[in-house]
């Protein structure tokens, strides 16, 4: 059984571990760190101790042949034959990781009909495209997709497997990692290769964005991660790039599934997916009443944008849940995010902080949103926003 121990001989009582513990489980007693039952063995203190006085012991783990595993495998995501932008971002990031150790990059494309996508994926950075085409692969379905991918991973032994942290990636990857008895890190915003051992350092926000945790998967392979869309950058495509296309042979059993997609209902017009918007005008409790969203809609229309909202506005019933931005809503990364009457609580912030430009209108100068916006406007939104609308109309005349 795993355990944690403070080595009395080595602990100098400096107390550096006390604040490092995210669970408040360490206190100092007689100049010695004492660890309480609150401890979850997360390991944060171990790395904070400069004296090597905190040791987490784990039991034996079955050794696997690490050096048989190499390369980075990206699981492509497609809808109606179109490969999602997040896949291109992953190829870009895989390329940057591969610069460190010259890893080969492969991409797995399961689709009804690939068209010229395999060549395009090579242009975006893949060395090998593993391709399966079948009408039954038109829609993502967990079981065939996981079964086919698992077999490929077992055959090809990639050191790293990446997928986008979309509803597809977050459905598929946990199933694969559980079946292959390896680790998976969710929704990473930063990846790097550890110079010490070549392992993948996977960094992600947790605790509602209050902390960033760096996670490793040191004893099993592959190292798997889902990566937040719109954080990594895609490469410029290079048509001259060379690569291989390898067909995956499928049997009818591969395609068997206990789930079936009966119907796909696209969002209604006007009910557009805010994660795709380039401009978002967002309202919070400061909007005071549901009808005031009309003001934001007018501004959003002028800027070809969509409407977002804080949870306070959703909970008040002013606007439906699909508009919620934040920890329990959507993560957005528009070019322009205009927060109106939103305080900027951390749960809201984690959903919009990667926007290219953040504007904030708030009458309270000490609202937290002013600590991380690009341009803040201190004043009453009911005065400022109508004037902004008027001014835009005037200049466009």
């Amino acid at each position, binding site marked *: 059984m795993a355990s944690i121990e403070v080595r009395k001989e080595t602990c100098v009582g400096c107390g550096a571990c006390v604040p490092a513990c995210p669970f408040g489980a360490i206190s100092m007693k007689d100049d010695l760190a004492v660890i309480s039952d609150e401890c979850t063995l997360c*390991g944060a203190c171990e790395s904070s101790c400069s004296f090597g006085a905190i040791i987490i012991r784990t039991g034996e783990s079955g050794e696997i042949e690490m050096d048989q595993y190499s390369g980075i495998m990206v699981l492509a995501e497609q809808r109606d034959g179109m490969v999602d932008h997040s896949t291109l971002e992953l190829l870009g990031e895989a390329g940057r990781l591969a610069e460190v150790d010259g890893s080969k990059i492969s991409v797995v494309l399961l689709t009804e009909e690939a068209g010229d996508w395999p060549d395009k994926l090579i242009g975006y950075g893949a060395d090998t495209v593993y391709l399966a085409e079948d009408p039954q692969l038109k829609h993502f379905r967990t079981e065939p997709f996981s079964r086919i991918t698992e077999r490929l991973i077992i055959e090809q032994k990639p050191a790293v497997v990446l997928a986008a942290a979309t509803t597809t990636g977050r459905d598929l990857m946990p199933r694969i*990692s559980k079946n292959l008895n390896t680790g998976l890190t969710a929704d990473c915003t930063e990846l790097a290769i550890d110079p010490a051992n070549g392992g993948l350092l996977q960094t992600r926000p947790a605790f509602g964005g209050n902390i960033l945790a760096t996670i490793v998967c040191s004893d099993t392979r592959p190292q798997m991660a889902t990566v937040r869309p719109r954080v990594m950058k895609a490469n410029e495509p290079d048509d001259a790039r060379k690569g291989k296309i390898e067909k995956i042979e499928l049997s009818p059993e591969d395609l068997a599934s206990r789930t079936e997609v009966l119907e796909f*209902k696209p969002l209604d017009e006007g009910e557009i997916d805010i994660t795709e918007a380039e401009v978002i005008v967002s309202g919070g409790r400061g909007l005071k009443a549901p009808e005031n969203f009309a003001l934001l809609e007018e501004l959003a229309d002028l800027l070809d944008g969509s409407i977002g909202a804080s949870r306070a506005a959703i909970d008040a019933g002013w606007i439906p849940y699909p508009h919620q931005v934040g920890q329990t809503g959507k993560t957005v990364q528009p070019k322009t995010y205009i927060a109106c009457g939103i305080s900027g609580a951390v749960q809201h912030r984690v959903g919009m902080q990667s926007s290219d430009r953040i504007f904030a209108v708030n009458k309270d100068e000490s609202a937290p949103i002013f600590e991380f916006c690009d*341009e803040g406007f201190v004043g009453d939104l009911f005065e400022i926003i109508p*004037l902004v609308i008027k001014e835009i109309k005037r200049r466009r005349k």
Partner: protein
Amino acid sequence: MRIVVAVKQVPDTAEVRIDEERGTLIREGVPSILNPFDEYALEEAMKWRDELGGTVTVITMGPPQAEAVLREAISMGADEAILLSDRAFAGADTWATSHTLAKAVEKLGDIDIVMTGKQAIDGDTAQTGPSIAASLDWPQVTFVGKVLEIDENSIISERYVEGGCEIIKSSLPVVITVLKDANTPRLPSLRGKMKARKIEIPVWGIEDLKLPENEVGLDGSPTRVVKITTPETFSDGEIHHGEPEELARLMVDSLLGKEGR
């Protein structure tokens, strides 16, 4: 219908504050709550139990004090509860957590549906549900906004994905992960509260689940946290004060570019 709902006790992340000087979390006085998403999973399970008959069993894996969220679930209307607690479970990542929860589902036997919340607000991984499905070798339907229909052999639900919603049919047994749109969770009832006070909650450890030590807790976890930092606050933004007209003009300058349209 026998439904298991996996629930988790989490710190209320809204109450977590940052110690700016040390760049760490202040956990003191932060209340522990039932993971908000799990309330929707629980409500969805109870709704269908009320309609079709059967039982709702809540399970959690956690330290002894995690029992509190089981009692809360009972007060809201769950029928029975089981606490999975053992020193050996400490430090579990989603692999080991789902492995342990799946073993408990197997031990309960004859379960039709396992429901989980979409994600837990501390770890924010959303991985436990699909991993339970993998452990049990059951199908899974994730990100479910609403369960539309359940009969003897199948379940039809709405799964929310980018750009739309899939109507998915699955055979039973199945694992479902539930979003917040699903329903409005009911409040604890007086009867529920009384039951919650009295009910005996069995505690299962590694021996009860016949799990080897290297498949649970930290030893059974392929991932490890090696570093925790607090996100940097970038405060290089420009804050404008002044008359509304002036502010509106400045904002439009930036929005459209000085000469822009």
